[in-house]
């Protein structure tokens, strides 16, 4: 049986996550909305951002290996309210040269995580229980 996911990560972004994890320990994402650096994913040390009933876990990125040989996953969260408008799209976390972005961990490295989106297929929608 095929497994379906809402989130993915590019190899470049995965490499950056390995580097950040070596420095900061386990990581998490929370997708932002609103002004300025909004509509972008924010990367924090795991637990720095307190999630609760108003958030939904979109999925966990498997980011294994890296120089520090720490295995583990990076959960990706979004607010429930925002998810109402995003639920039909698949998100891939990428990284581009950039400058700043809230308190996200990668900014001092001169890069910025970025969401690339595509429509979920009918099969994926069914597999995710949204048909």
């Amino acid at each position, binding site marked *: 049986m095929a497994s379906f996911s809402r989130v993915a990560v590019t190899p470049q972004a995965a490499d950056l996550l390995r580097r950040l994890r070596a420095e900061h320990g386990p990581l998490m994402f929370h997708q*932002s909305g609103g002004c300025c650096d909004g509509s972008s994913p924010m990367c924090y040390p795991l637990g720095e951002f*307190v999630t609760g009933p108003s958030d939904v876990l979109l999925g966990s990125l498997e980011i294994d290996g890296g120089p520090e040989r720490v295995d583990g996953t990076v959960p990706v969260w979004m607010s429930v309210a925002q998810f109402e408008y995003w639920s039909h799209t698949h998100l891939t976390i990428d990284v581009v040269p950039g400058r700043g972005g809230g308190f996200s961990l990668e900014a*001092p490295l001169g890069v910025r995580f970025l969401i690339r989106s595509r429509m979920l297929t009918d099969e994926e929608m069914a597999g995710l229980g949204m048909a």
Partner: protein
Amino acid sequence: MTVYAPPGQPGSPAKYAGRYDNFIGGEWVPPVKGQYFENPTPITGQTFTEVARGTAEDIELALDAAQGAAPGWGRTSATDRSAVLLKIADRMEQHLETLAVAETWDNGKPVRETLAADIPLAIDHFRYFAAAIRAQEGSIGELDDQTVAYHFHEPLGVVGQIIPWNFPILMATWKLAPALAAGNAVVLKPAEQTPASILVLMELVADLLPPGVVNVVNGFGVEAGKPLASSPRVAKVAFTGETTTGRLIMQYASQNIKPVTLELGGKSPNIFLEDVARARDEFYDKTLEGFTMFALNQGEVCTCPSRALIQESIYDQFIADAVQRTEAVVQGNPLDTGTMIGAQASNDQLEKILSYIDIGQQEGAKILTGGERVHLGGDLAGGYYVQPTIFEGENRMRIFQEEIFGPVVSVTRFTDIDDAVKIANDTLYGLGAGVWTRDLHAAYHLGRAIQAGRVWTNCYHLYPAHAAFGGYKQSGIGRENHKMMLEHYQQTKNLLVSYSPRRLGFF
């Protein structure tokens, strides 16, 4: 028409130093860890200065300076504080071109906007709060003929302010002016995308302020913004930005039991009723300009009118006229006063905008004009330019629900006023909205029914002091730009006084 020379070039009114330290205690202080970061102009993509990469250690130094200055500043008379604000305004006015060109170079916005809006509005803002603090009064409650409740305004002490990059000097002023008027000392963290123009302002006004009353620490959000926002030494945090960081700042504030004000953006509807097209007159022309306001400041405005709702009965003709008006927007060198749209503030913003243009098309929205990155030649080749873009689609699409923060408007139809209200309010946010009509009954009904803090009626993108600005729903907490902001920077002290010599009789 004028084309300004870039800062530092012969004939330019502005000049940037090669390096900037932090401004702490009235002096330029190198960062404790000795690190700096490069600051490029989005106009060319080239670095023009380097700026202190502040950390928690620098924030602590700034908090020391602010805590040292706050008691004395808080005790000065309103008259004296007002006079300082007026002097700052005068100094800015004397150097308006310098500040405007410096701001354009740091941010990428057209100099016609910084000359006519950003800097004049900032100047007026200082004058407004200089006046407001003089006019502010406490109150007296006469509880009975021998018991009186006196209410005094007291400053909070030291406040932290985190500034966005879309209007660096103006947004800093929106926060600084009321905080200083109310008698607080400030530690301010500019955005790392636009760290430099605020320092040009500080160079200009440093001699007017007692040392330590305003402290500016630059650096990255995670390294400098977070230590400021999470410090138990600040009595309040003010932030403009996005929702996830807004929540994080509230979380830190909850740990310290401190108040916050937050301005977190929107997805503002701009509503055009059928009667606007009743005549092809001056007002219709103004209406089309109102539509095109989505391109102001490259769309990098929290209240960008990024959803246009057009009544079905006039849709085809109105959108044809609107496309024509949008295609007349002049894009080019931001230092040319003829340029209407400049550069996006950073490369990652450019990439984000292009990613939304991509998902918009995937969702089935149709591009009516624009939709591409613009490659300007010559010195501007490395800059971050996007065509003004009009999408036609449905309100459920992500391009109608997320703040793209670029020159992108998503257009849809509505049938009647109830339908317009329903679509307008179908959003997580509630910061701004626009209503365009010749029918004052419809204007009033819509204005009251839309869940947003500011409803521009037959105008858009005006930001005068004395008109409260702030959000409903997820757009934030608090109101800036109005004397009510003073109370966001003040404590209430109640003296409850009995003038009766008689005991109560309990004991």
